[in-house]
């Protein structure tokens, strides 16, 4: 028997001034600029594509080895290799006109001025991008965003500076490598962010005993994949308890049940990252399966589940 469309759960959501068809997005750095996906992927089914971090100037990234598999995860240290904002504006923005999925541009910088310049350059041209995710938490660049991501005042200043320059959606991407993620989230909220996303990768290291070698050129990299899901869930739940802006959950999502868990913890939307490396079509598959999963639950819409985890206290 054919399922009637009207029985499908409602997955639409609004965040800032943007309406998304569904809450399942692909994470920055795991899907290129949204234009490179192989033909077997229908990118227009995705709730949104968060594009690879863009800096003011192109970056070559770190020398190899840049990635290594670890137990239920992987460590990467790509070093923000990217084409730079000028080429992004010239080459990528026009392509987005033909996509129906929402594009969220991820921006990274080494000081507030760099973030501002990038944002102003993009704002000065006409484009269909839905908003910005601000990378204040990349662990793999020496002078990079981490300085912002660990400091409430810097986070607030940066958020304010960007907020005053755009009406588009602003999502601050938070690092788990801090003593108190909630205070950084709160600083973002108070300074005018529309949402926060959590978590970026967890600082990690991989060594091969037999050779005595560290497996990543920069020694430390960012751990991602199912190994960090519990860290992500806890961060989202803590943020949900203290913030009133929406939270985008990230970290180790590989199935529709993982999506549901993040929503129950407090995420209004989620991003799929490392799983895209295993299967470039997995995010699309998870969206279909999440639809079926929702139809079997008591929740009439994805929004209703948000933060509804039953805790023991």
């Amino acid at each position, binding site marked *: 028997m054919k399922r009637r469309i009207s029985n499908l759960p409602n997955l639409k959501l609004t965040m800032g001034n943007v309406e998304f068809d569904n809450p399942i997005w692909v994470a920055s*750095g*795991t*899907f*290129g600029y949204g234009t*490179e*996906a*192989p*033909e*077997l992927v229908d990118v227009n089914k995705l709730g949104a594509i968060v594009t*690879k971090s863009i800096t003011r100037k*192109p*970056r*070559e*990234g770190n*020398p*190899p*080895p*840049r*990635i*290594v*598999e670890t*137990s*239920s*995860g*992987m460590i*990467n240290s*790509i070093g923000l*290799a*990217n*084409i730079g904002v000028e080429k992004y504006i010239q080459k990528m923005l026009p392509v987005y006109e033909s996509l129906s999925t929402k594009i969220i541009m991820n921006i990274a910088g080494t000081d507030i001025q760099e973030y501002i310049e990038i944002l102003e350059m993009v704002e000065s041209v006409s484009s269909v991008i839905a908003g910005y995710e601000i990378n204040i938490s990349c662990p793999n660049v020496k002078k990079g965003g981490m300085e912002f991501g660990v400091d409430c005042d810097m986070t607030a200043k940066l958020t304010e500076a960007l907020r005053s320059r755009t009406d588009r959606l602003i999502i601050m991407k938070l690092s788990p490598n801090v003593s108190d993620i909630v205070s950084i989230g709160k600083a973002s909220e108070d300074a005018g962010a529309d949402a926060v996303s959590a978590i970026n990768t967890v600082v990690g290291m991989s060594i091969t005993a037999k050779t005595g070698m560290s497996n990543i050129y920069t020694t430390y990299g960012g751990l991602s*994949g*199912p190994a960090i899901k519990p860290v992500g869930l806890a961060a989202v739940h803590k943020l949900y308890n203290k913030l009133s802006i929406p939270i985008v959950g990230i970290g180790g999502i*590989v199935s529709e049940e993982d999506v549901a868990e993040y929503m129950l913890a407090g995420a209004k939307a989620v991003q799929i990252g*490392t*799983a*895209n*490396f*295993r*299967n*470039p*079509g997995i995010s699309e598959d998870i969206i279909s399966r999440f639809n079926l999963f929702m139809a079997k639950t008591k929740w009439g819409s994805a929004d209703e589940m948000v933060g509804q985890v039953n805790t023991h206290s």
Partner: protein
Amino acid sequence: MQIEKAKILTNAEVAHNIWEMKFEAPLIAKGLKGAGEFLNILSMESWQNPLRRPMSIASSNGDVLSIIYKIFGEVTTILSNKRTGDYIELLGPLGNTFTHWQNGHHPILVGGGVGLAPILNLQSECKSAKIEHSIIIGARSSNEHFIDHNPDQQIYLTTDDGTTGESGTVMGPLERLVKEKANPYIYACGPEPMLEAVRDFSLAQNVPAQLSVESYMGCGVGFCQGCVIPRDSSQIQDHSYHHKYSLVCLDGPVYEAKDIQFA
């Protein structure tokens, strides 16, 4: 490029710790362009090992493809435990191909260790095109070889310990053949020290060479930007977002020797 569940036909140890697996993959077979292409292989459903393993195609015959792999870790052990009739999930075909010799070139094919796989595939192409060629296969010891040393057929084996074929590395017969043959063209795949030696030799002798390189790979489709190799060519590629590096999964795995560097 397809994701296909391929049915395993055979999976057997062909030399010490070196296995050959044959499987039916009609969708992927349809998209093949030539020797040098690879598959990104998922050995298990569980996410204990999230990433696929890239492996060069060793042969293709209709719908049937094969890989050659060496057991050295958890994932390759799991692969070796697969039986006839089991399925493995493949993503492919991925990467570029060896570009073909021009008329009058004498291809010298050089394979070391499991780097032999794409070289055997190229050898089949030489045979079907009736191109006279030589092949050199290097290993540490005789128990790692599964092809016979046969200089009459221009098949030269080497072993580090001298237990079969010529003693020493592939460089011995390679240096000799390059002198003997008119218009030699080198095609090589193997461990990095071997490729580096072949590269340096080909540049010094001004002999054209194509190398299929190995790289630690995440996705195989350009998303992760993990599999870079330093490039020695100024031609800017969009794939790696910067001219300093090249993405092995999209720009490679086959490169002109002069275009790449080894770290």
